[in-house]
């Protein structure tokens, strides 16, 4: 990203374990072997490659042309498309899991996207930056300006992230649209899990991002 040169905040390289990003390994561990997975917003295809190495049948959608071309040249099954407009073209129950990694906040209609994820997939794995993270709160409270962090360095006027939420907000949305949370993990700045068994408010304060394994609620 050329932007990084001019910004005061250096990007944080995500922690890696055995060559793979720690947060990707966490997501991959949520996927049962032998499943079919759709990665929405698959970027350069790193997570898809990890899934494929585990014998998982992975497909991707990516908005950016560079991302798509890189993935296709690597032999990955990735199509150029937009989460907001293209998910409707996928039939019900086409996948075991649909992954939406760090993309929810950039969609125009996060609620509709989330509903589509759980229509296409039996389960969804959603990760997003937590706007309740203490660094965010501090910048708005003390600094009086829109927060920017190492992982979200863009200014308010040039960010593609238009629908930020906190972990608490996301949990509330899941309850509202009758989505069952099977597993939830908060990650720190380096993509490492925040220790388990802490109350929600701690995660909402100290998690830089939230990762949720979701399934359809049985209520409706």
């Amino acid at each position, binding site marked *: 990203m050329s932007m990084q040169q001019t910004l005061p905040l250096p990007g944080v390289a995500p922690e890696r374990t055995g060559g793979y990003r720690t947060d990707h390994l966490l997501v991959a561990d949520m996927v049962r072997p032998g499943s079919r997975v759709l990665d929405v917003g698959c970027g350069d295809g790193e997570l898809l490659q990890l899934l494929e190495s585990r014998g998982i049948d992975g497909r991707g959608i990516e908005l950016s042309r560079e991302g798509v071309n890189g993935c296709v040249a690597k032999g990955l099954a990735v199509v*150029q498309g937009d989460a907001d407009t293209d998910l409707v073209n996928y039939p019900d129950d086409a996948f075991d899991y649909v992954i939406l990694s760090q993309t929810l906040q950039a969609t125009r209609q996060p609620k509709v996207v989330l509903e589509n994820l759980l229509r296409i997939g039996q389960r969804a794995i959603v990760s997003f930056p937590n706007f309740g993270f203490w660094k965010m709160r501090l910048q708005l409270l003390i600094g009086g300006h829109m927060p920017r962090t190492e992982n979200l360095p863009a200014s308010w006027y040039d960010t593609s992230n238009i629908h930020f939420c906190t972990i608490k907000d996301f949990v509330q949305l899941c309850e509202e649209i009758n989505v069952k949370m099977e597993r939830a993990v908060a990650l720190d700045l380096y993509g490492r899990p925040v220790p388990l068994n802490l109350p929600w408010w701690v995660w909402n304060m100290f998690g830089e991002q939230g990762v949720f394994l979701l399934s359809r609620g049985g209520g409706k």
Partner: protein
Amino acid sequence: MSNVRPIPSPQTPSDDRAHEADHPSSLVAKFGMDQPLKLDCGVDLAPFQIAYQTYGELNADRSNAILVCHALTGDQHVNNIHPVTGKPGWWETMVGVGRPIDPDKYFIICSNVIGGCMGSTGPASSNPATGKVWGLDFPIITIPDMVRAQAMLIDRLGINTLFCVVGGSMGGMQVLQWTAAYPERVFSTLAIACSTRHSAQNIAFHELGRQAVMADPDWRGGRYVDEDTHPHRGLAVARMAAHITYLSDAALHRKFGRRMQDRELPTFSFDADFQVESYLRYQGSSFVERFDANSYLYLTRAMDYFDIAADHNGVLAKAFTGIQTRFCVVSFTSDWLFPTSESRALVHALNASSARVSFAEIETDRGHDAFLLDVPEFLEISRAPSCWPQARRAD
């Protein structure tokens, strides 16, 4: 108007080309009366022959064969000097040592389509029943007919499963038809700048081309060979019109703008004052040296009739239900003949069928013809099949 110069006659008589129609400078597979090609129009075509070229070696388990399908005016000479024009093969950017489709790694097959004029049986071939050139007595052929003939050739070569079927434009239509007709025989595909059906606009352009050929008095109702003429003016006009559709406004502007051809000022005549006119005339006149006018009519017709969904109650996704083939679909931003929207419709249908599909749109101003040109981003993506595991054993 002494300055008006019509499109010149070909420099050399088209004897070379006429000879190629029956006696191609390539490999030939002949099929006798006992092995007719069953055409969609109801005719059993027999005997017939398929002219083809191969590059590279078939491996021991016969799993490395790639079939290259040529476009409307292409032929089997993908990667060797053309026997009529003396020019390099038509897809040297894609096929060759170190290229995405590498003969050091794959056994590459390319056959002239049925209905073509470079050695596969078509309207320019001799009709064994009469001893004369087929002309308009040749039955109408379709894209599925072309693919059926290719399948017979592949059988003849002892290959069960093709590792990949590759093609752009009309070649891409054949690729898609292969997956619809013989899904179990195709491990993967690379379908470039194509569509699952020919659009109304494209049919309209083809009709323009055909009418230009048929309006030429030298066409003689299709019997020009018997009467020792050739409708080169009509065919050249058809080619000129078609060639415009293969380019883009931006590419024409970049290449020619409003620049004059070998002159400073307009001649106030209908001579080719502009470079773009001169270029088009050259495209038209060089084409007629190597292509048969009736063959052009038949092949454009085959494209017009192409509509995969029509064979599946209008539902495209049904054509690909349960398919195991890997698809790589590529389109170009400036292609207005087979625009990205057509590829996207195909990709949506493949997704709905849970097919394994990659899709990339390449940014270029070079129009439909971009697939034949040195477009690095496109050629990089075309290496995708080489990342895929070699075809599962055909057993």
